[in-house]
C-alpha cells in the first residue's frame, strides 16, 4: 500500500538549488537548440496556420518538459512525500522563467555582439525569429511569459487526474501527428477522391487551419472521456485470458488485416508517399535481419551494412549491362540466387573470424569489417571489376511478366519490398520459436552455460550472421533495382548505425517493435540518404537520432514495442512509466506499491 502523503509544501518552501539547476539546463537546452539552427530551419514547416511552426515547437517543448521534471518527486521506499500543491507549480514556473531568460540573453547577445564566426546561427534570422520581428521587448515578454506558462503546465501535469492528463496527451499528440502526416493525408484523400477533407483540415500553404485544429483537439480530447479506459481493460483482459492458441490465431488475423491494408493502400497513394513506404520497407528488411543478429542472438554487429552492399553489388554485376568485368545481364530472379550465395559466403567469411569474440570486441571488429568492405568497393584494385567510385549504373528494373518493378514507379517497388518484408517477417517469426531460436536466446544470456547445455554456439552464431546477411542482401538487391545504380557511397557506416537505432528504438528482439521503429524513424525522419515525411529534418537527422537513442536508453531501454521478456526484465521501471498514463491512479499506485 502507498503510504499516505504529507501535507503539501508551503509556497516558498522550495529547493532553490534544484530549481536553478534544472532552470539553467532548460535555458541551455533552448539556447543550444536555437544555435544549432533547428528553429530557423524548421520554421518553414507550418504545423498550425499562422500560429505554430515546427521551429517554434522545438523551442517550446523544452520548458514544458523541464517544468515536469523539476516538480517530479523522487519516490523512495519508506519516505513520505508531501502532496503536490501550488509550491510545485511555482517550481515549474520558475524553471520555465529561467529558460525564457536564457532566450532573452541570447537575443541581447545577438543584438550586441557578432559571434557568427564560430556560431553559424548567431544571425539576424534567428533574431527575427525570436523577436517575432517586433523588437527585443516584445520577444522577451513572449518568451518569459510562455516559459512561465509552459513550466507551470509541465508541473501541473503531476497534479491532474490521469484522465485529464490523457485528454491533453491525446489532443496534443494527435494534433502533432496530424500535422506531420499532412503529405500522407493530402495524398490519400486525393486518391480516395476526398479532397474536400484535406482542404478542410489543412491550409493551402501548409499546416492545419486554426479552426480545424481546435475542433480536432476537442474531438481527440473527448476520446478518453468516452472510452474511459475500456480499451485498455479489454486489451489486458484479452492478454491474460485468451488461450495461447487463440492468441496466435488472432495475431495471424491481425497480420493478415495489416497485409490487406498494405496491399490496397498503395493504389490510393501518390508517388511520394509510395516512395516513402518503399524506403521504409527497405530499411525494415534490414532491421529485421539485424534484429535476428542483435536482438535474438545478442551479437552486436556494427558492420551490417556490408551485407547490404553485397546484395546491391551482386545484383548490379549480374543484371547491369554496364558491369565493367563480368556482365551476364541475367534476370533479377537469377541474380537473386547469386545474391543469396554471395551473402551466405560473406556472412561466413566475416562471421567465422569474429564469432569467437565476445561483446565489445565483436562490435569493434565488425565495425572494421564493414568499413573494409566499403573501401574494397571503392578501391582502385577492384575498379576494373566493380567500377570504383563511379559504381555500376544502368541496372534494369525487375521484369515480372505483366508487371515491371522500377524506380520510376514507386508503387511497384513498394509491392516488391512488401513481398520481401512479409517473407522476412515470416522467417523471423518461425525462427524465434524454433530450436535455433532457443539456442540464440541461451547464447545471448550466457554463452558458456549454453555450451554446457550442448548448444553448438559457434554454429548457432554463424547461422544468425548468415540469416541476417541474407535478409540485408535482399534489401540491397531491391535497392539496386530501384535506384538503378550502386555506389560505395550508398553503403557507408551510417547505414549500420541507423538500422541499429531503429532496432533499439523499436525494441530489440521484437518483430512488431522493429516494424514500428522503421515506420516511425525512417518514415518520419528518413533514412541516411532518404528523406522522410519531415524533410526539414534532413540536416538534423543525426542529432535527433542520437538524442532519441540517449533518451530511449535512459527512459525506455526495452524499446517502443518490447517483447514480453524485455518488459518482464525491466518491469519495475516500466510500471512506474505506465502509471503516468494509467486509468485509475489509486489502483495503479496500490499495485506499484506492492511490487516495489
Amino acid at each position, binding site marked *: 500500500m502507498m503510504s499516505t502523503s504529507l501535507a503539501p509544501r508551503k509556497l516558498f518552501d522550495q529547493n532553490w538549488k534544484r530549481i536553478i539547476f534544472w532552470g539553467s539546463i532548460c535555458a541551455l537546452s533552448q539556447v543550444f537548440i536555437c544555435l544549432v539552427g533547428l528553429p530557423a530551419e524548421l520554421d518553414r514547416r507550418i504545423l498550425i496556420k499562422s500560429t505554430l511552426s515546427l521551429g517554434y515547437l522545438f523551442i517550446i517543448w523544452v520548458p514544458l518538459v523541464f517544468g515536469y521534471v523539476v516538480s517530479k518527486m523522487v519516490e523512495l521506499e519508506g519516505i513520505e512525500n508531501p502532496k503536490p500543491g501550488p509550491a510545485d507549480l511555482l517550481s515549474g514556473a520558475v524553471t520555465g522563467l529561467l529558460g525564457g531568460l536564457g532566450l532573452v540573453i541570447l537575443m541581447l547577445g545577438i543584438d550586441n555582439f557578432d559571434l557568427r564566426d564560430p556560431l553559424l546561427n548567431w544571425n539576424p534570422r534567428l533574431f527575427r525569429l525570436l523577436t517575432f520581428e517586433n523588437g527585443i521587448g516584445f520577444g522577451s515578454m513572449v518568451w518569459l511569459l510562455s516559459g512561465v506558462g509552459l513550466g507551470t503546465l509541465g508541473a501541473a501535469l503531476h497534479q491532474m487526474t490521469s484522465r485529464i492528463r490523457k485528454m491533453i496527451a491525446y489532443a496534443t499528440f494527435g494534433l502533432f501527428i496530424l500535422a506531420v502526416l499532412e503529405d500522407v493525408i493530402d495524398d490519400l484523400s486525393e486518391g480516395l477522391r476526398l479532397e474536400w477533407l484535406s482542404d478542410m483540415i489543412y491550409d493551402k500553404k501548409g499546416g492545419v487551419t486554426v479552426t480545424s485544429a481546435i475542433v480536432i483537439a476537442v474531438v481527440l480530447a473527448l476520446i478518453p472521456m468516452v472510452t474511459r479506459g475500456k480499451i485498455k481493460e479489454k486489451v489486458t483482459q484479452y492478454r491474460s485470458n485468451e488461450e495461447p492458441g487463440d492468441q496466435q490465431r488472432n495475431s495471424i488475423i491481425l497480420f493478415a488485416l495489416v497485409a490487406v491494408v498494405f496491399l490496397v493502400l498503395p493504389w490510393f497513394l501518390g508517388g511520394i508517399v509510395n516512395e516513402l513506404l518503399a524506403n521504409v520497407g527497405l530499411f525494415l528488411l534490414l532491421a529485421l535481419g539485424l534484429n535476428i543478429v542483435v536482438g535474438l542472438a545478442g551479437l552486436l554487429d556494427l558492420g551490417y551494412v556490408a551485407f547490404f552492399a553485397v546484395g546491391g553489388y551482386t545484383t548490379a554485376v549480374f543484371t547491369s549491362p554496364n558491369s565493367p568485368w563480368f556482365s551476364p545481364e541475367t534476370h533479377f530472379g537469377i541474380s537473386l540466387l547469386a545474391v543469396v550465395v554471395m551473402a551466405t559466403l560473406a556472412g561466413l567469411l566475416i562471421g567465422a573470424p569474429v564469432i569467437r569474440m565476445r561483446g565489445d570486441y565483436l562490435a569493434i571488429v565488425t565495425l572494421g569489417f564493414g568499413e573494409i568492405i566499403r573501401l574494397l568497393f571503392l578501391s582502385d584494385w577492384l575498379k576494373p571489376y566493380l567500377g570504383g567510385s563511379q559504381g555500376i549504373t544502368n541496372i534494369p528494373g525487375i521484369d515480372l511478366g505483366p508487371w515491371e518493378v522500377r524506380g520510376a514507379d514507386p508503387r511497384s517497388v513498394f509491392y516488391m519490398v512488401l513481398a520481401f518484408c512479409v517473407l522476412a517477417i515470416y522467417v523471423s517469426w518461425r525462427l524465434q520459436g524454433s*530450436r535455433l531460436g*532457443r539456442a540464440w536466446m*541461451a547464447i545471448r544470456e*550466457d554463452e*558458456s*552455460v*549454453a555450451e*554446457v*547445455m550442448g*548448444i553448438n554456439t559457434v554454429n548457432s552464431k554463424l547461422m544468425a550472421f548468415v540469416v541476417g546477411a541474407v535478409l540485408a542482401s535482399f534489401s540491397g538487391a531491391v535497392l539496386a533495382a530501384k535506384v538503378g545504380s550502386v555506389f560505395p557511397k550508398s553503403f557507408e557506416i551510417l547505414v549500420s548505425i541507423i538500422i541499429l537505432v531503429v532496432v533499439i528504438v523499436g525494441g530489440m528482439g521484437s518483430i512488431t517493435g522493429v516494424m514500428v521503429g522503421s515506420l516511425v524513424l525512417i518514415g518520419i525522419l528518413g533514412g541516411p540518404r532518404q528523406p522522410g515525411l519531415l524533410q526539414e529534418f534532413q540536416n538534423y537527422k543525426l542529432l535527433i537520432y542520437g538524442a532519441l537513442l540517449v533518451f530511449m536508453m535512459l527512459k525506455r531501454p526495452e524499446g517502443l514495442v518490447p517483447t514480453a521478456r524485455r518488459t518482464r526484465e525491466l518491469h519495475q521501471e516500466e510500471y512506474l512509466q505506465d502509471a503516468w498514463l494509467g486509468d485509475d491512479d489509486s489502483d495503479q499506485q496500490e499495485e506499484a506499491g506492492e511490487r516495489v
Partner: protein
Amino acid sequence: MTETALLEFRAVNTHYGAVHILKDVDLAIYPGEMVCLLGGNASGKSTTLKTLLGMVTPTSGEVLLDGEVVNDKPTSYRVTNGVTMVPENRRLFKRLTVKENLELGAYLRDDKEGIEEDLENIYELFPRVKERLSQKSGTLSGGEQQMVAIGRALMSRPRVLLMDEPSMGLAPALVQQNFELIQQIHEEGVAIFMVEQNANMALSIADRGWVLQTGRVVLDDTAEALLSNPELRSSYLGES
C-alpha cells in the same frame, strides 16, 4: 572391475595456452557410482569437469565415454549420451524464466512426451519450482536456484551428473539438504561426479575420491580410506 567405465581419463594433459593444467590425470567413473574430486584452489578441478564434458580439449591422453575415445567429439555428443554438468555457482540463465531454463536443459532432446514427463518428475521432486515457473530465475533464492540448476541438468536425462562445487554459496542450513538431494538423485541410478571444497561432507556420501594437487592426482582411494588418511585430514579436512 571389468565393467567398462562410463567416463574415463587416460593420462590426460590439458593446457590453457602455454600453461600446463592437468598433468597425466587418470580417473574412471563407473555407472551408478558416486565419486568426488578434492583439491585446493586452482588445482584444476573445474578444468577436469570441462574436459570430461568436452569444453576443453586435452593436449594429450584420451577421454573415453563408454569405452569409446571421444576427444574429438563435441559437447553436444556427450550431453546426448548422458553426461551433464551443473556448473559452478549454478549459473542459471538469469533473465529467462524457470520454465525456460528447464526447457533449455532438454535442448538436445526431440521426444516431446519424454520431456513433458521429465518436467512432471522435476515438479514432483521440487514442488517449489513448480510454483515459480514463470518467475525470472535470477530473482529466485539461493536454494531455489540450486533446485532449478539441478532440475535443468536432469532434463537431459543424464547417466552421470558432473557437479562443480554444488554447495558453494549456499546457506549452511541448505548444505545438508543439498547433499541429501544429491544422494536422492544418486539413488535413482544417476552416477555423480562431484567437485567439492566441503571434503568431509562429500566423502561421507561418496564411494571413492581423488585428490588433485596442481593438476596431478596425488591420492586415489575409497572414501573411507581418504577420510581416515592423516595427510588429507590435516590439509583438507581442517584438522590438525
